[in-house]
């Protein structure tokens, strides 16, 4: 993992950073790389409200805001941006709107690397809308100025279509921090954390999946 000038992470939901990327973000922070996390929604249409429920549809945005703020603190970020769009609605913003939002952030921060979802391989419509906006914004830049793209893909056809991920970040030594980051998203991660802490084969598989490596695809425009 090379030292970057600035890393910009763009995801739509508080907790999108926790599972696949928080080890990588923590490593960058510890290397002294400025990392910005732009989170487009409050995740306020999520179905997990605690079990038994401790949130409602109306209190969820405040709860998930606090959760992502705690997650950012644990990662060590000093630039968390909550853009406040409503969960599930990103794909319905006017054409070009999100691209403009992304472009403004790129112009301001001049990131050398952007981490986001892989268009067509990220399942949730908000993920897809975010990914497309980033690709569109970067495509409009002169080739020599484009930041590197490091993308998260997890649809069921990913391996078949894209092959093995070509960026593998080893997060050894970050397991405890990452588990705390995931735990910060309490309204989302309760059952998964129980699995991670267990002694079963399923628990070992989950630890292998989340706590050893974080994997990504690079992406070349054109």
């Amino acid at each position, binding site marked *: 993992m090379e030292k970057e000038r600035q890393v910009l992470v763009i995801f739509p939901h508080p907790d999108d950073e926790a599972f696949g990327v928080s080890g990588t973000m923590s490593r960058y922070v510890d290397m002294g790389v400025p990392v910005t996390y732009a989170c487009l929604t409050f995740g306020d249409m999520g*179905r997990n409200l605690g079990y038994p429920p401790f949130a409602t549809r109306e209190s969820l945005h405040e709860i998930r805001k606090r959760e992502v703020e705690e997650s950012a603190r644990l990662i060590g970020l000093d630039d968390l941006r909550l853009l406040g769009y409503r969960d599930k609605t990103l794909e319905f913003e006017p054409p070009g709107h999100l691209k403009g939002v992304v472009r403004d952030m790129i112009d301001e921060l001049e990131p050398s690397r952007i981490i986001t979802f892989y268009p067509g391989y990220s*399942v949730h419509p908000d993920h897809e809308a975010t990914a497309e906006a980033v690709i569109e914004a970067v495509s409009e830049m002169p080739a020599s100025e484009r930041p590197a793209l490091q993308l998260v893909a997890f649809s069921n056809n990913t391996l078949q279509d894209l092959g093995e991920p070509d960026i593998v970040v080893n997060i050894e030594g970050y397991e405890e921090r990452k588990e705390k980051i995931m735990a910060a998203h309490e309204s989302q991660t309760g059952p998964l954390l129980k699995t991670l802490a267990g002694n079963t084969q399923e628990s070992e598989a989950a630890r292998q999946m989340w706590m050893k490596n974080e994997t990504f695809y690079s992406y070349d425009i054109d």
Partner: protein
Amino acid sequence: MEKINREQVQELLNSYQDKKVYIHVEVTSGMYASHLDDQVFNTGMFLRNVPVNYTQGAIRGGGEGQYRVGLKLDNGGWVYVLGLTHFEVNENNEFIMHGFNYEGKLASALEISTKEFFK
């Protein structure tokens, strides 16, 4: 949130009758339903901050803790939600009814407020 108490919910429904109110209505199988199980057909909907005026609101059902609520609108239209299990009136005086599935995930919602919901 607490489990639905039919009498309390009926009283609350009565209290919003014949007033301009805002509703949030939602039914969802989750965005990952068919990603996790390709036998599942993804469905979902929400309506938010829709102003209505209902002349009659009633709660029915209750088998296995699952209730139905229907609102008859002043123009003859209807709002109907199936599978409601929990309710509360929050600090903003919003009347919230949620239906949680067997895994504890939100499956349906009907919310009523005299003021607009958070945008």
